[in-house]
């Protein structure tokens, strides 16, 4: 790993999780506030996370196993916000607490 690729790879890994977090945050705020534009912005973040994962897989010197793990993680990120949200709605439904 060259000095430059060290920093590039680390920053890409950070941005990957940041984009995943952006998806979760915007998706859930959009759902809570009933604003579809925010949900779409959240999905755009996930596309960004996927794109970063592809760049990590294609252009960084990480091992193949780690690249596969990141690509699979990107796919898992896609389902976490909607699945968690549905689960929250289900567990909260008896309490009458809905955003």
């Amino acid at each position, binding site marked *: 790993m060259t000095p430059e690729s060290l920093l590039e790879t680390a920053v890409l890994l950070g941005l990957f999780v940041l984009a995943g977090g952006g998806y979760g945050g915007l998706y859930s705020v959009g759902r*809570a506030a009933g604003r579809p534009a925010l949900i779409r912005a959240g999905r755009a973040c996930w596309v960004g996370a996927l794109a970063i994962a592809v760049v990590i897989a294609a252009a960084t010197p990480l091992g193949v196993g780690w690249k596969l793990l990141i690509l699979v993680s990107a796919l898992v990120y896609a389902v*976490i916000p909607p699945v968690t949200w549905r689960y929250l709605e289900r567990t909260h439904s*008896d309490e009458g607490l809905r955003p």
Partner: protein
Amino acid sequence: MYRSQRLSLRYYAAAVTLFGVMIVFGLLSALYYLYPSLLFNVFNFSTSKIMHIDTLVIWLLMAFLGAVYWYLPKELGREVEGMWLAELTFWVFCAVVIVVAAVFIFVQYGPATDFTLWFINQGRKYVEAPRWATIGIVVVMLVFAYNVVATCVKAHRMTGIMWVLALDLIPLVLVYLDAFSYDRNMSTDLYWWWWLVHMWVESTWEVLIGCVMALVLMDVMGTSRRIVETWLYIEVMLVLGAGILGLGHHYFWIGTPQYWLSIGGFFSALEPLPLLGMVIHAVYDAGAHRLKTTNRPAFFWITTEAFLNFIGAGIWGFMMTLPQINLFTHGTQWTVSHGHFAFYGAYVCGVIAVFYVAKQKTSGAAYLDGKAWKWAYGLLNIGMVGMVMGLLLAGMAQAFFGRAIGGSTLMAFTTASENPWFVSGMYARMLFGLMFAAGYVALVYDLVTSPRRIATPALQPEPA
């Protein structure tokens, strides 16, 4: 108010005081990086760092104990069993901390003898307290465990939260015993030492703060017991499933077998996923309550905990957790940046929320809000974000110039430490550290002053 809740307030007062001591020594440690000859032959950097880190561990531990003593009678409907022992051990705990701090400050270090091990410094990072004091802390933990279990038995009542807390007491006491052991083989010694740091401070404390936050959520947001207990079980499952083997990321470079690279990297890479779930849950709860609560400071600190935990542990951790990256970043200011952010997000925000719960109850305010807490909230959060950004910049300079280019030699370390990127990062850390200290002053001011009478807005959640 129960007797144990009065004890809890004493624990909070001690914790807030030690929080301040931690900040003072943090600022002093930061100054050494800017002026390396500071206090030369008077007070060395390593002792300042010991004070900074050990007070962090102790003030958080005291706050956790205080939080449990606060909620235990409410949860079980009776006074805590063995209160006189609990009160006695509180004063023993305080005395131990004062004596150890005095020894660290005025004696600092001793020759490599058993006397030093027992009475000055046992030389193990994060648990430098001499052995007699370590025994004292074990006694405090045992009494705490007795208080919890005996109260549950006497009350003939076990809630889900109490089961998790009672089971967590086992590693809370047992894993801390690891503070006593040492091995002449450095690899073996570090192998077990990381059990103490990762399993005790990270995993066991994660469950403990999870129990405390479950109780706080019921109190502040009126969330139902069924919901908080469900999420608590999920958290325990994640700690057991991924958190324990996440320990492996500490085993990369200490002489352990190579398979730890794969185990540590894999399980650490999973860690951001549940943290993302926490962010979504926080947004859901904030939306469900439409940001309305009877205790706004506690509510905002709880919500902030979810976000900063994700950023500090998730993003900052993932940047440097894979072995190929970690080879260059471990032990640099990059790690320090991650450590500050993760601890602040995972524990400090939650503990401050607990302080505000106690403030509301003791002041009798139906609705807690105002300006001072917002100053504290803003200064502490901006101060922390600024500090970790400065440390990240400095750490990247160290990894780039000192490790990747310079090859980790002493000369490369020195060169990297004089690099303008590193130096400017250190100045930024100092500046934002002062801002953080100002936030602490605002926090203390807000906690000790009586709240102004504010009319209670409508639609407040009823405590569960």
